[in-house]
Structures are given as C-alpha cells and as structure tokens.
C-alpha cells in the first residue's frame, strides 16, 4: 500500500493547482459576492411570507453538490486529457521507468485518483460551500428580517444528510462518466495534448458517417443515440428535477432514491469495463513504445 499511497500523493502534488487552489479561489469569490450582496444589495425577497427554511437549505445543498460534481467531472476531463502522457514532459518518463513500478500500476492509480484523491477534495470544498450557503441564509434573514434559515441543529442534520448522499452522487457520476474520461486519457497516451480535440472529432466523425449512411433509410441512429445517452448524464431524473424545482422534496434521501432507481446500472458497468480495458491498453502502449 505504501507505493500506491505515494503514487496517489504525487498525483495530488502535480495537480494541486487544479483541485486545491482553483476551488479555494472560487469559494473566495463566492464569499466576496455574497458579502457584497448583503452589504450593498437592496432586492428584498417578496412573497407570501418567509419560505420554508429547511426546504430552501435542502435544495440549496443539493444544487451545491450537483454544481461541484459537474465542475469535478469537467476538471477530471482536462486532468485525464493530460495525465496519461504527463510523465513524458521534461524527460520525466526516464525517471519513472527507472523506478520499480509497472506502467499498469502507474496508469491504474492515475485512473483511480479521480475517486481516491480528487473527488474527495472537491467534496470537502462542497461541504465548505454548504456552510457558506447557510451563513448566507442567516445573513439574508438579518438584512431583510426574514429569518427563514433553519436553526443550527436542523442545518447540521441537513448538511450531514446532503453530504452523505452527495458522496454517493459524486461516486456514481464519476463511474458513469468513466468511459468518457478513459477515452480522452487513452487518446492522450498516444497523441498527448491533441487528445482534447480528438476526443470530440473522432466520435463526431463516426456520428456523421452514421447519419450519412442513414439518409433515406428508416432507422434510428444507434451510435448517436448511445453517445447522447452517455453524455446526457444517465438516468431518469425528470421527476427528481421537478420535485426540486417545485420545492416538494421533503428529504434528500428521497431524492437520492429517485436518482438511484432511475440509474442505468448495466450502462454503468459496461462503461467501467470499457474504462478498465482502455487503461490496460494504454499501459501496454506505454510499456512497449514510450521511452522518453
């Protein structure tokens, strides 16, 4: 385990700017905007009285988790667009090849770092953002005399509830997008930084060919539909989104249950299997053909 931890740690050290410093700056900006709004804003919320504080808190934290997960997946896309070829920079590959670690292990741990290192860091940032959001609710309450924020104990329970369900949501999201991340990582092994345009151009070309083939044919575009399903985000979440928008969701766990029930588990397993195959092939490419 010692070598695995050391290799995961070096991924963190190499990419701390993207996953540690950049989110800290984002949260700093959020706090500045929030404080500025409270100090200088004058838009008094109108309505039929103060909203249900617990519902607002719950929805706010769910959106918070969803936003951080979305940012995380995008950040991981750019991470994997470089990570599998990053060891070639500045002749580093010769150093790594001189170490008693196999190429499969090194790339396998880069693949695992999304769930083992980066998403946990982003989860901590999401949790901190949740506290900032709660403090914002309290601030709004004081400014406009709409004390709708839940009491600290209720807020803590909602925060924990959101956190636990957020972990599951983040893990499932990364696993769902694993084949997309593996696709760009595999391309980067061979093509380096060209992996980003190629990750879109190659499937785009295949979809275009399929569309051309299907002109004047009465058939559904199988490849295009499959890719759209993968990129769409997976599951039958329409009813969940409706509940969130209407404010009728009474528990984050209920929301998570709706999410998990609608999940395409077979698609997820197939995607992870594809990702594992790509990592293996990339490691063989690196072992056989990449020296510097």
């Amino acid at each position, binding site marked *: 385990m010692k*070598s695995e*931890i050391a290799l995961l*740690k*070096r991924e963190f050290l190499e990419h701390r700017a993207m996953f540690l410093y950049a989110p800290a700056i984002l949260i700093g900006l959020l706090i500045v905007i929030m404080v500025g709004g409270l100090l200088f804003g004058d838009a008094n919320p109108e309505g039929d009285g103060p909203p249900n504080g617990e519902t607002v808190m719950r929805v706010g934290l769910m959106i918070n988790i969803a936003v951080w997960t979305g940012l995380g997946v995008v950040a991981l896309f750019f991470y994997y667009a470089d990570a599998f070829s990053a060891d070639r920079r500045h*002749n*580093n590959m010769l*150093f790594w090849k001189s*170490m*008693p670690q196999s190429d499969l292990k090194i790339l396998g741990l880069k693949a695992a770092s999304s769930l083992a290192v980066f998403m946990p860091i982003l989860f901590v940032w999401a949790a901190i953002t949740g506290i900032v959001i709660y403090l914002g609710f309290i601030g709004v309450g004081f400014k406009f005399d709409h004390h709708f924020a839940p009491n600290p104990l209720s807020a803590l329970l909602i925060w924990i509830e959101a956190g636990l369900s957020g972990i599951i949501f983040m893990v499932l999201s990364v696993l769902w997008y694993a084949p997309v991340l593996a696709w760009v990582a595999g391309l980067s092994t061979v093509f380096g930084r060209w992996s980003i345009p190629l990750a879109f151009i190659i499937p785009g070309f295949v979809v275009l060919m399929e569309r051309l083939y299907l002109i004047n044919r009465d058939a559904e575009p199988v490849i295009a539909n499959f890719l759209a399903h993968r990129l769409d985000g997976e599951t039958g979440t329409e009813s969940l989104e409706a509940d969130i928008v209407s404010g009728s969701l009474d528990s984050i766990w209920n929301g998570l249950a709706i999410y998990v029930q609608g999940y395409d588990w077979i698609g997820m397993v197939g995607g992870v299997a594809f990702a594992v195959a790509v990592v293996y092939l990339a490691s063989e490419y690196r072992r056989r053909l990449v020296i510097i």
Partner: protein
Amino acid sequence: MNAPIIQARGLRKRFGKTEILHGLDFTVPAGRIYGLIGHNGAGKTTTLNAVLGLTQCEGEVSVLGMDPFANRARLMQQVAFMSDVASLPRYLRVSELFDLIEGIHPAFSREKANAFLQGTDVRPRAKIRTLSKGMVAQLHLAVVMAIDARLLVLDEPTLGLDITYRKRFYRRLLEDYMTEDRTLVITTHQVDEIEFMLTDVIFIKEGRIALDAPTEEVAERYAQLVTSGDNASKAAALKPIYTETRFGQTVMLFDGADREALEALGEVTSPSLSDLFVALMDRTTYNAEPASSNERAAQ
C-alpha cells in the same frame, strides 16, 4: 563462478527498416566497472535501453537472471539508472521527491540521499525546477547512490556539466558508492575522465562491438609508438592499425605487436583509451572530409 550481471547474445534492434544493433554479444560480470563507449548514434543508448527493459529487441538479454523487458518493474528493485538528460519531476520539491521515492522504491535510503547532498547547495525545500543543471545532476546522483542496487547504469551522466561537477561526480561515485558487490555500466564521450576508474571497456561502432576487453588486457595488447625518420618507414612495415603525425613525429598504434621490436624503433607506451578510441572507431562519415596530410600517412 558467480552468474553474470548482464548477458546479451545476438542482440538486434531495428527502427523501421534500419537495423541499429547488429547482433551484439557481451557479458558483464559482477563487481566490474564497464565503460560503454562509442560515437553519437553508435547504439550505446539503445543497448542500455535493451538492458534496462525499456525497449524490446531481438536476441537474448538477461540482467540479474531476468528478461528485462518482461520484468522491468521487478528488475528496477536491484538496478539504479541515471539518463543523459535531467529527468527528475520538476514540479516537486527536493523533500517531496525523497518522500515519493521512499514510498515507491524499497531499496532507497533517505538518510543516504541526504548524506550525499552534504557539501552541495541543494536545499530540501527547493523546487527542482529552480535548481541549476549541475545541482539537478548532483541531486539525481544522490538519488541513485541512495538506492542499494546491484547494478548502476549511467548514460552520459555528466553531459553539459562543468569540469568541477564532473570531477566531484566521479570521485563520489568511486569513494561513496562502488563496492565489490556492485557493478557499474557507464557511457560517455569524455573517455579521458573515466579511464582511471574503468575495469573493462566495450567500444561500439555502428551497432557492432569493436572492442570488449578488460583495461589491463587493452594496455598489454595495444602499443603506441612515437617515432620519426627512417624508423617510421620501418614501423609502417609492422602494420600499425592507425597512424598520425604530431608536431613532426609519427605516432602509430599497433595491435598485438612485438614490443621489443617496436622499442628498437622509438618510444613505446600503452595508448590511452581516447587514443585507442580514435584509432579503432575511425569511420567514414556521410559528409566525408577531404584527406588530411597528417592522417592516414601510412595508407
């Protein structure tokens, strides 16, 4: 008898249609210091890459009893390697580098690495990307010497470094690292600087071995004659392998010649490795020079 550290038989390597190594055979026993010497493009680095399991070749290679290409990760537990270019991860600090290697290399000693850095300007909190080329070389040398390896492979380790660093580099290597249990293979163009420490030498010329012998045998087998006048003509009849003129005198190199016969014609010494290198590795280049008046005088 102990098993050899490296054994290569019929080692061949092609890049496309071009064959770079043409069937090398060599054996490196334990406890020796081998110099692998050749021109740019002669095949030295490709040979080392084959030995280190970095590239797949035809023929048989065995290092510490293992097929290096199939077992690179396992082999590197007993092999330390330093390439001709700075290859340490630049985004790390020196202390972070030691943390990392301590985690992934079971034979690495942090205490030894720190001890090897004594007397240098390399600070533990320094980022590697801020270090000078010489300091990076010192750091890398500290790393490889802190690995308790049976085989150390150095590929042009002092390329681009100034003379002070180079002298210190080889001194520390000999004084602090080499033992009779360890084997060193080193490639360099600066033959003069490593000649004193080599026990064996392999000259590679255009993918073939031109010489593979212990340095003691080289000193006995080859003779250098400095002569002039009629004696030069008589010496030329003894078939020198190389002839040149220096400051009006004729310098000839002989392979296996009778020393007593040569001593009658002038001053006889054992040639330095760099003289021998020039003699044995002389080759036709793509852009050939016009014939010089003082070279190939005997031809």
